[in-house]
């Protein structure tokens, strides 16, 4: 809804509530005052209710302190806030899921689900004013038709009657008088040219006088105007049944008050005549009459009430007059108070400030849900700048802690973070001029995105596990949506419990400008990222029953074991727990991803087999998020082989979407998650490079790869201009490949890697888009794909030790860091300030380790192409033989060639030296030398030396 409408809607609801509250009070006291207070007073009391429905007190009246009735504002806020965001809940019906066991596991169909949404009220609310206007137009149409029809048949009143009228009005303004055979009852009609209309009958003088007095009283009191107002107000509060009651009550009270005024100065006789007039007019009305009914219908009851009050009428004492006045004032006060409490909670404080003199503006206690205080410099009569100091006293203490102390200009605001529950004090000093200023001081719930989310969760009685602001949303959320960006957009990830489960949500928040509060514009559950209206995955999956091929069910299964055959998933679906009875070593649990077509089986992956376990109680927790961080569809099946070799199977299809950022606290019901899943680490690594956060970068890699010196590449930066991660996931194939590669290898033996350790290696694939500052680093940007290899120090997969990157490889086999050594040498050359341009690059591949060659050569080739060098792979002698050396030495002043070779290759500590010399220098002279420490394909330059060093 547009903002103005939202405000208007809010005002309407506030007025409706206020009016209802006043009406409730009036109905409650009605039996008490009915016969004690003048009817006129009672009439005007109801007009107060009308006023409450139509006057937005909250716009004019500001309550200085939080009132005893803060609830109106909260009720309204609550409803306005959620009026536009009523959550659609989906009901889910899972049908047709069978868990049967077949020897060859077959395709298991996904759950079929039925969704239905709750009605979207937002639409209805936006069009509420339209209904009112339509209803009003309809009513007015009827009225004007009536007027028109009536007018055609009107005839002037008799002279005698006009005389009576003139006498009664005694020279003051008078309505017209007509007779009309179509009129059913004497009435006053018309807003601007009011007229009294009499049915075309005979009236005695007494009757006429009573009728005219009655209508004239209505005329003088402008009751017609009030009636129109009541209709108008009622049409806008059509949704509120209390408004209907109020309108009806006002009509009744109006007539009673009018009667009271007419008979005020009449004696008993006169009153009798008046009542008789009423009865006779009713008797004569032309409305269709039921001949035999004795029903107590509305009209009869109303008339009886009027007659009754005529009979009971008496002079009112001074006491009652005073009481009436008091009551009217009290009710008006209540109306204003209740109405004003509907105002949004802005607190404005006006204070006279003197230059140089610190004055306290206000103090208060921070609410539990708030943690920020917003101070806005609202208005001034003097100072344009003031010095704001905000301090707080921690719970129960006396010492002041300064939260903020800064200058604030007119129309600007500042925010101070104050711990909830503490007492804050705001002081101000005028700077520049002395004078009055007005500050608006608000406890802001949504000063930060996390605050806004926190409030949303706590309001729904959720208990928060984790709240974290994140940079981007998971790809599944972003797909197909335009997401807001910029400093006024934010994303937050939160994990919290509600009565119905444990949920992970992604929030999108936006704010109007840097001074406004954050508002949640969308939220997605992690398991419904594709469709926010989709239903959640079931919290607890069914129990599997193991069947053999001949259909026999596994016998003698203890309840414990049966209970354990449950694929348990937490709502953020990171955990699968399967308990199988201890069988032979052929007992195991397999996982298989769905194939590309969504069905069938891709290569099954053994999650665990009982041969790995040592005890009889077999319970295994497989954190699927470690391997499928973005979610997966697949099947889990359990194979149990008993001691006779009979095989039992059970299968379950599973589908879950996962999160990229796991919980930091790890308070999951079934064991913990740590913030160390492999994918997470790789993400951190890349972001650390983007942000030049060396400490973070070091925390993501094995010690051997850590950077001792941030200026490792002489520029003190990774040189990343921008980086966006498109996707990052565990690659099962690559993981399997490297595990196979290392298992039983010499390298593994040399390094003391057990099979278990190798089983704990994982390959993470990343696709990302990066832009490098090529004046700082040579890396080529663009859309890149890479594998990161991580391992963790563990003997089995149930470890919680952190994953660390031990190697990085791009799919093309190119390794930037192998090139790094080479690059540094070139950089050296360029630094020594020769005028000669490089013509040749030669590499003596004699001692080069094979894998190095595979990586380095393409990199150098690429560089050569870019720089228009010619790449030669040859020894010095070979080059000399082919004439390249002489080519250069002959052309001494223009070009140069550089030869690289490798030496002191030390397999023990994995270091070697990369040496280089110019073609124009003598053979074997070393112009530059770079010592590298090699860790797989990562080269770390540990030293640079040589004659070229300037």
């Amino acid at each position: 809804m547009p903002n103005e409408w939202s405000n208007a809607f809010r005002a309407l609801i506030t007025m409706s509530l206020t009016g209802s509250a006043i009406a409730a009070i009036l109905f409650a006291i009605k039996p008490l005052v009915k016969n004690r207070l003048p009817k006129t007073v009672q009439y005007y009391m109801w007009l107060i209710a009308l006023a409450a429905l139509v006057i937005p007190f909250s716009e004019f009246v500001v309550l200085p302190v939080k009132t005893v009735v803060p609830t109106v504002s909260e009720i309204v806020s609550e409803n306005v806030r959620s009026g536009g965001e009523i959550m659609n809940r989906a009901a889910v019906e899972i049908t047709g899921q069978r868990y049967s066991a077949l020897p060859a596991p077959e395709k298991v169909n996904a759950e079929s689900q039925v969704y239905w949404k709750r009605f979207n009220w937002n639409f209805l609310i936006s069009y509420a004013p339209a209904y009112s206007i339509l209803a009003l137009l309809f009513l007015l149409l009827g009225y004007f038709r009536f007027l028109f029809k009536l007018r055609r048949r009107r005839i002037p009143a008799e002279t005698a009657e006009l005389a009576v009228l003139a006498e009664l009005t005694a020279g003051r303004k008078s309505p017209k008088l007509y007779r009309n055979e179509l009129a059913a009852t004497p009435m006053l009609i018309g807003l601007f040219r009011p007229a009294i209309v009499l049915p075309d009958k005979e009236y005695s003088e007494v009757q006429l006088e009573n009728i005219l007095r009655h209508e004239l009283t209505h005329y003088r009191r402008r009751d017609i105007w009030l009636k129109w107002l009541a209709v108008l107000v009622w049409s806008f509060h059509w949704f509120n049944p209390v408004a209907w009651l109020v309108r009806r009550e006002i009509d009744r009270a109006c007539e009673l008050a009018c009667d009271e005024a007419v008979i005020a100065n009449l004696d008993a006789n006169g009153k009798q005549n008046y009542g008789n007039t009423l009865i006779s007019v009713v008797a004569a009305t032309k409305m269709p009459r039921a001949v035999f009914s004795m029903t107590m219908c509305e009209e009869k009851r109303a008339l009886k009430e009027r007659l009754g009050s005529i009979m009971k009428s008496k002079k009112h004492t001074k006491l009652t007059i005073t009481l009436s006045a008091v009551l009217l004032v009290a009710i008006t006060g209540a109306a204003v108070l209740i109405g004003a409490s509907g105002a949004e909670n802005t607190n404005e404080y006006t204070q006279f400030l003197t230059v140089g003199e610190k004055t306290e503006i206000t103090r208060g206690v921070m609410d539990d849900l708030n943690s920020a205080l917003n101070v806005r410099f609202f208005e001034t009569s003097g100072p344009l700048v003031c010095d704001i100091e905000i301090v707080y006293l921690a719970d129960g203490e006396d010492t002041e802690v300064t939260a903020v102390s800064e200058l604030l200009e007119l129309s600007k605001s500042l925010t101070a973070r104050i711990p909830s529950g503490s007492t804050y004090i705001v002081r101000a000093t005028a700077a520049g001029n002395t004078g009055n200023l007005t500050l608006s001081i608000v406890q802001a719930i949504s000063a930060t995105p996390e605050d806004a989310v926190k409030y949303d969760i706590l309001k729904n009685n959720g208990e928060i596990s984790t709240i974290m602001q994140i940079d981007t949303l998971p790809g599944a959320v972003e797909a197909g949506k335009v997401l807001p960006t910029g400093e006024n957009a934010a994303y937050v990830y939160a994990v919290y419990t509600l009565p119905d489960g444990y949920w992970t949500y992604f929030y999108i928040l936006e704010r109007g400008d840097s001074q406004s509060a954050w508002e949640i514009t969308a939220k997605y559950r992690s398991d419904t990222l594709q469709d926010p209206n989709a239903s959640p995955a079931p919290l607890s999956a069914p129990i599997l029953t193991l069947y053999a091929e001949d259909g026999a069910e596994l016998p003698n299964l203890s309840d414990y074991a049966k209970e354990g055959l449950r694929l348990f998933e937490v709502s953020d679906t990171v955990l699968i727990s399967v308990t199988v009875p201890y069988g032979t070593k052929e007992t195991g649990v397999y996982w298989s991803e769905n194939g590309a077509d969504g069905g069938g089986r891709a290569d099954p992956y053994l999650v665990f087999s009982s041969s790995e376990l040592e005890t009889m109680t077999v319970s295994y927790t497989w954190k699927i998020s470690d391997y499928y961080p973005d979610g997966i569809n697949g099947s889990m099946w359990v194979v149990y082989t008993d001691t006779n070799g009979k095989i039992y199977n059970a299968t379950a299809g599973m589908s879950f979407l996962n999160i990229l950022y796991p919980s930091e606290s790890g308070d999951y019901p079934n064991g913990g998650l740590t913030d160390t899943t492999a994918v997470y680490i790789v993400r951190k690594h890349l972001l650390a490079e983007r942000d030049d956060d060396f400490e973070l970068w070091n925390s993501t890699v094995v010690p051997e790869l850590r950077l001792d010196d941030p200026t490792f590449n002489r520029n003190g930066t990774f040189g990343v201009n921008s980086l966006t991660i498109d996707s990052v996931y565990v690659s099962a194939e690559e993981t399997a490949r490297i595990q196979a590669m290392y298992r039983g290898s010499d390298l593994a033996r040399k390094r003391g890697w057990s099979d278990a350790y190798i089983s704990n290696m994982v390959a993470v694939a990343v696709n990302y888009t990066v832009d490098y500052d090529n004046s700082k680093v040579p890396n080529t940007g663009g859309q890149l794909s890479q594998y990161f290899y991580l391992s963790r120090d563990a003997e089995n997969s149930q470890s919680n030790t952190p994953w660390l990157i031990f190697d990085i490889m791009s799919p093309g086999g190119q390794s930037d860091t192998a090139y790094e050594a080479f690059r540094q040498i070139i950089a050296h050359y360029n630094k020594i300030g020769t005028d000669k341009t490089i013509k040749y690059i030669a590499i003596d591949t004699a001692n080069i380790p094979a894998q190095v060659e595979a990586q380095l050569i393409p990199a150098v080739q690429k560089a050569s192409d870019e720089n228009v060098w010619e790449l030669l792979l040859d020894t010095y002698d070979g080059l000399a033989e082919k004439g390249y050396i002489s080519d250069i030495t002959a052309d001494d002043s223009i070009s140069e060639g550089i030869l690289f070779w490798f030496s002191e290759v030390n397999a023990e500590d994995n270091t070697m030296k990369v040496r280089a010399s110019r073609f124009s220098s003598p053979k074997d002279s070393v112009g530059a030398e770079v010592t590298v420490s090699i860790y797989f394909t990562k080269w770390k330059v540990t030293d640079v030396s040589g004659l070229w060093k300037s």
Partner: protein
Amino acid sequence: MNTAERISNAELEIMKLLWRENRPMSFTEIRVAFQQTSRWDKSTIVTLIRRLADKGVLTAEKRGVLYYTPNISEAEYVRAAEQQMLDKLYGGSAKRFVTALVTGGKLSEADIDELKAYFKMEGGNDA
């Protein structure tokens, strides 16, 4: 008089004819008149006339065959229709915009008597 609301559109056509001709008409005359202008068949006209007679809107006079005369003049009918419409309008939306001395209603004679008996001022006399 409720006749206005009880005359249907078809019946009104018969009435209009009678008003126009301003003389008692027999069934045959009526039927012939309608033959030109409408597609009503004999039985329809018979039914309509009979209904009007039952309602008391038409008086049947036997002069050999039955001759029919309206009991209500066109002016009266129009007025009754107007009244009825006005009552509807008043009963509907107009009553919210005017102040009436009494809300006219469906009070029976018995209701009126009851009210009269109820309303007795002390020291007053029935006027």
